[in-house]
């Protein structure tokens, strides 16, 4: 059925141009055809991938989510009347706490329906981003690492540094417990448990367990996530207000 749809597109193009295009495609992409879609879509998709970059710019070989890219995009989504919903896709190792929390707060305060889906991994500061949306999904095989806040490579010199870190961690815990069904006790228990991560404290939570703990709403893939998002859009149109 899908093939049928693309045939008129191909036959419309002049033969010569088509051949030339196919050659550049093979050269540049290693593939011959990508379906064309011109109509505007009411659902936009934000990807949180790689490391969440903080105040220090990572070398270009790192795959990073930069807040100076993401935050204006969220502002644009909020402003554009044609966009009715946002799907947030996470596959992140975590990163900067401040930048991660900034993105999470932006998503939580978006007036449009948002649904998040964790694929692969939504670790560390990816957890608040995943729970910040109105509804969250996690795939069966995806994992989320919950661990305490730490400074990479820097030494805690004075007790005040430790207290500062503790306060920063408290903000993460408060955000997660406010935006998901997990209790503070359970979240902290996962955060400080020993023996789950090799020589480290914390827990690596797999998809269905994340749902069981109340951290994520449901196990599911892209179909369920989009269905939920459409449902939320409909519900909002009928006059419902977004809760989170």
């Amino acid at each position, binding site marked *: 059925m899908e093939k049928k749809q693309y045939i008129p597109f191909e036959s419309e193009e002049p033969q010569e141009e088509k051949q030339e295009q196919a050659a550049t495609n093979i050269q540049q*992409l290693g593939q011959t055809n990508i*379906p064309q879609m011109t109509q505007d*879509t009411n659902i936009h998709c934000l990807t949180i991938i790689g490391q969440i970059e903080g105040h220090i710019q990572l070398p*270009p070989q790192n795959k990073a989510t930069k807040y100076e890219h993401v935050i204006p995009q969220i502002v644009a*989504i909020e402003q554009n009347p044609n966009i009715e919903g946002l799907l947030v896709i996470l596959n992140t190792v975590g990163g900067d706490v401040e930048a991660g929390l900034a993105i999470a707060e932006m998503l939580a305060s978006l007036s449009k329906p948002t649904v998040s889906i964790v694929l692969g991994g939504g670790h560390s500061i990816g957890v608040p981003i995943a729970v910040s949306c109105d509804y969250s999904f996690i795939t069966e095989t995806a994992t989320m690492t919950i661990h305490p806040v730490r400074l990479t*490579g820097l030494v805690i010199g004075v007790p005040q540094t430790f207290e500062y870190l503790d306060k920063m961690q408290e903000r993460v815990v408060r955000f997660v417990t406010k935006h998901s069904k997990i209790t503070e006790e359970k979240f902290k228990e996962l955060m400080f448990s020993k023996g789950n991560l090799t020589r480290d404290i914390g827990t690596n939570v797999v998809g269905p367990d994340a749902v069981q703990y109340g951290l994520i709403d449901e196990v599911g893939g892209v179909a369920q996530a989009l269905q939920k998002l459409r449902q939320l859009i409909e519900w909002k149109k009928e006059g419902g207000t977004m809760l989170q």
Partner: protein
Amino acid sequence: MILYTIMPEHFIFQVDSDEYTKQKVVYYDGIPFLVQETETKEWEIVRNLSTNPAHFLEQKYAPGARFPLSMAATS
């Protein structure tokens, strides 16, 4: 040499500052792209930063596609 440390790699092996200037964010057809310059004086798309899923279906916006330097706008 085995280096056992919790320090991130980029703190120990500092990347040359030229590496940072290789990639740039530009707008092409109003869509933000992370690009790098090629030897042929063109921009090669490294990453499509758009949130519109439709932009990912256009072959000219796919990673690896190139467009002339003059086609890029900074905002």
